[in-house]
């Protein structure tokens, strides 16, 4: 049984997804992390999601992530974020405005699924 579970979690599609969300100060994205996490758990998706401000972004990026999400209000800095993400070979996308908030979980999860 233990072996079976192990095999299951090793399969790529069930493997835990690591998502990094970057906003200006890491405050509003913390709310979004909570909403996304709740929605993902509901669907049985295992995730590790972290919120950072622009200052910590580059240092955190090297920890290895499956996806970087950029908060809509800092989308004008996408080019700078992208450069670092490409170096770390991590896909990056801007969150849809409607998905960015405490009630945006379902919408954001849908966007995440399309990206991963």
């Amino acid at each position, binding site marked *: 049984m233990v072996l079976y579970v192990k095999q299951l979690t090793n399969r790529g599609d069930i493997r835990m997804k690591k998502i990094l969300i970057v*906003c*200006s100060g890491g*405050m*509003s994205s913390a*709310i979004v992390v909570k909403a996304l996490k709740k929605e993902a758990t509901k669907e049985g998706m295992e995730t590790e999601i972290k919120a950072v401000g*622009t*200052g910590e972004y*580059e240092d955190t990026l090297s920890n290895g992530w499956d996806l970087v999400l950029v*908060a*809509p*209000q*800092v*989308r*004008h*800095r996408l*080019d*700078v974020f992208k450069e670092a993400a490409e170096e770390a070979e991590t896909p990056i996308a801007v969150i849809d*405005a*409607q998905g*960015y*908030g*405490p*009630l*945006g979980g379902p919408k954001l999860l849908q966007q995440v699924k399309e990206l991963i």
Partner: protein
Amino acid sequence: MNKFFKFIEKVLMPPMTKLAEQRHLRAVRDGIVSTMPLIIIGSFFLIFAFPPIPFLAELVEPHLGTILFPFRLTMGLMALYASYGIGHSLAKSYKLDGVSGGLLSLATFLLTVTPQMVDEVGFVLPMDKLGGGGLFVAIIMAFVAVEILRFLQERNIMFKMPEEVPDSVARSFEALIPAGVIIPFVWIIVHVLGFDIHTFIMEIFRPLVTAGNTLPGVLVPIILITLLWASGIHGVSVVGAVARPIWLTLLDENVEAVAAGAEVLPNIAPEPFFQWFIWIGGSGATVALVMWMLFSKSSYLKKLGKASIIPGICNINEPVIFGAPIMLNPILAIPFILGPIITGILTYFAMYFNLVARPSILAPWTLPAPIGAYLATGGDFRAVILVLVNFAIMAAIYYPFFKAYEKKLVAEEQGEAGEQI
């Protein structure tokens, strides 16, 4: 109204965000942000030194000098810390060694100050040039230092170490030639030729600082910030990149006045002016709107109101800007943009006529506005009243627009419910 949003998106936004993302301004922003913890904690010692309660004030008076030391060595040396932070960020943006960039900037900045000989003490550095008063010099010197570093490294003019030398050791020698160029360069200008860089640079930036303290100087950032947020861009982050050195210089002059025991402070418009009195609950003072949403007949607005009220009290308002939404929403964007202009004018005159104390303390931005305003003004209860008045004004301005939008949403919700049946 659609044309209006198009105007913001196409005409206003591109040059502003481009400016804010300009490499040097970005380094200034990140470098200054990294000094904020020191400035916030340091400036709190001003409150300890001048508590708003007379009894306590008398009690601490004999110890004033001692209590103010942490303040003098943090906020009082603001430019010194910023110089390292800016140099570090700028060097990193060029993919150069951050520590080398920071240290070179620091040395270049310190070289602009002339040590003074004091009997029985030895050589001392005049601290006034290392605080807010020297901020613009620190910025320019960081640019000079890192650009020279970059120029030399790009042309491979550096001290080559044999291959056996470990990387970390080799890197510490990389800054050797840049330092050998920068230090004599600044030394000759400042100390040999006797050119007063501080006066020269401050005279260039003085008009900007003075303008930042006028009524238009207050309203322009307010309007730009709400216009940017109305199209979903972080207005404070963009405008602050340019305005923050000005706001910090204004703050420093106020803080120096407080430390010197002044009753009336020289400046009205350091950043806490906007943060606590205008942006109550975040840019656009949206917590007033969220309050109406709590009582909404629209189930969506009510749900969003409940989810947004706690972040709103802590000045986090992305949930309501993107959720309601205010962004690109012609109905809610009008009070969002107009309201702060009115509270901005009111607050300016309240402080101009000294009905409310002018801000001198930086408090953490997630505090509820009345508490933040009380701390920012060094404990003036009239500041709390002004925040409540501004909140009431914003609530009144939002109300009719909120009602109109609510009506629209309720109609849509009922339509959906009808379809489901």
